[in-house]
């Protein structure tokens, strides 16, 4: 009886260690995935802001722009971000 309890305890201990390792791995993967997503989403968000009619160029970030016509500085900013992203 004592022997089987010890065996079970050992088995539980091993399983616990395995769970820890998996949790750690899971977290690392999650972080990796999140970082990747964040970079892409940031630019997408900026593009969306621009399309919705706001400046995203450093000089006038967030201010309203005429949607009929583009902004040279926003366009060059997007182009620059795209180039550094690749």
């Amino acid at each position, binding site marked *: 009886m004592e022997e089987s309890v010890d065996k079970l305890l050992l088995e539980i201990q091993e399983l616990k260690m395995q769970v820890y390792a998996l949790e750690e791995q899971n977290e690392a993967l999650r972080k990796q995935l999140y970082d990747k997503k964040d970079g892409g989403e940031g630019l997408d968000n900026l593009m969306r802001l621009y399309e919705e009619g706001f400046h995203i160029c450093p*000089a006038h970030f967030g201010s309203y722009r005429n949607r009929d016509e583009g902004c040279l500085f926003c366009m060059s900013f997007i182009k620059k971000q795209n180039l550094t992203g690749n």
Partner: protein
Amino acid sequence: MKIICNKSDLVYGVQTVQRAVSTKNTMPILDGILIEANDNKIVFKATNLEIGIICSTNAKTIETGSIVLPSRYFGELVKKLPDIPIHIETNENYSTNITYGESSTSINGYNPEEFPVLPHISSNKLIKIPGDLFKNMVKQVVIAISRDEARPIFTGILTDIGSNGVKLIGTDTHRLAYRSNTIQTKLEMKEIIPGKTLAEVSKLIDNEEPVSISFDKNQVLFQTENISIISRIINGQFPDYNQVIPSNYSTNVRIDTKAFLQAIERASLLVRENSQDKANVIKLSISGEHLTINSNAPDVGRLHEKIPAFIEGEDIIISFNSRYLLDVLKVIDEEEIYLQLTGSLSPGIIKPVNQDNFLYLILPIRTV
């Protein structure tokens, strides 16, 4: 103050400074022209606190002194005076008699002590530019500036002075005009000068006379022999213009400036919008040996023009605001221009064929 002067000198002085008289009636004294008489010279001064103009002309000074006279009455009166010697004499309570022959007019003036003091600029940051060159440079750049006072830096022209000479850059963020010229200078500086000031200076100076420009911390002074113009400088960071100028292109069109201008003028007739904010869209199709212009206004009609052009690179269809094209084509004196494009969404470049010192960048309009 008591002076005698001739009509043409008086009209010249008054009309020169009148450009700076305030149109907004916030301070009555700013509607006035300050006249100072000393040493057989009269000096006219006017300011709206943004820009100040000083002009000196010859006169016979009998008694030195000064007076401020309301521009709207004095300015109109001097234009209508007969061409004979004109006597101007101030009395008590700042009333001023203007006598011509047997006739006279009396105008109530203001206390000259109340007139704002125009700042004195004595700076060693000075550059001299021939009058005709200055006018040409300003004319080519001022077209691209913004009128939107909410974004002040774009109502100004970036004046970039360095060992290579002077560069002027104006942009309203939809288009950008760049003009450079080699001028010997040791000065290294970048300042944003209000576009309105540069346009006024251009109108006031002579082609043959050089204009000297000096800067201090917050002001800029333009000087010719008789005229001084003082203006504030716009504070702020002008965005890096170099990074928006494309370094390559996929389509290069060489076209006759006049033929292109006239076709765009006709095309814009149909799509002309009264509102400054609305774009007047025209479509350019570049293929083979022709540039085709199409403009279409469902209520008015449609236009189709074909102009011969020398085309290198990819075929392209691209839409522009016709007003932006007209503005630049009117200030290019060269017979032919290059239109350089990189896809229908990227900015296009317009520049004269034989002139490297001017470049105009224009964003296309996205049409669905």
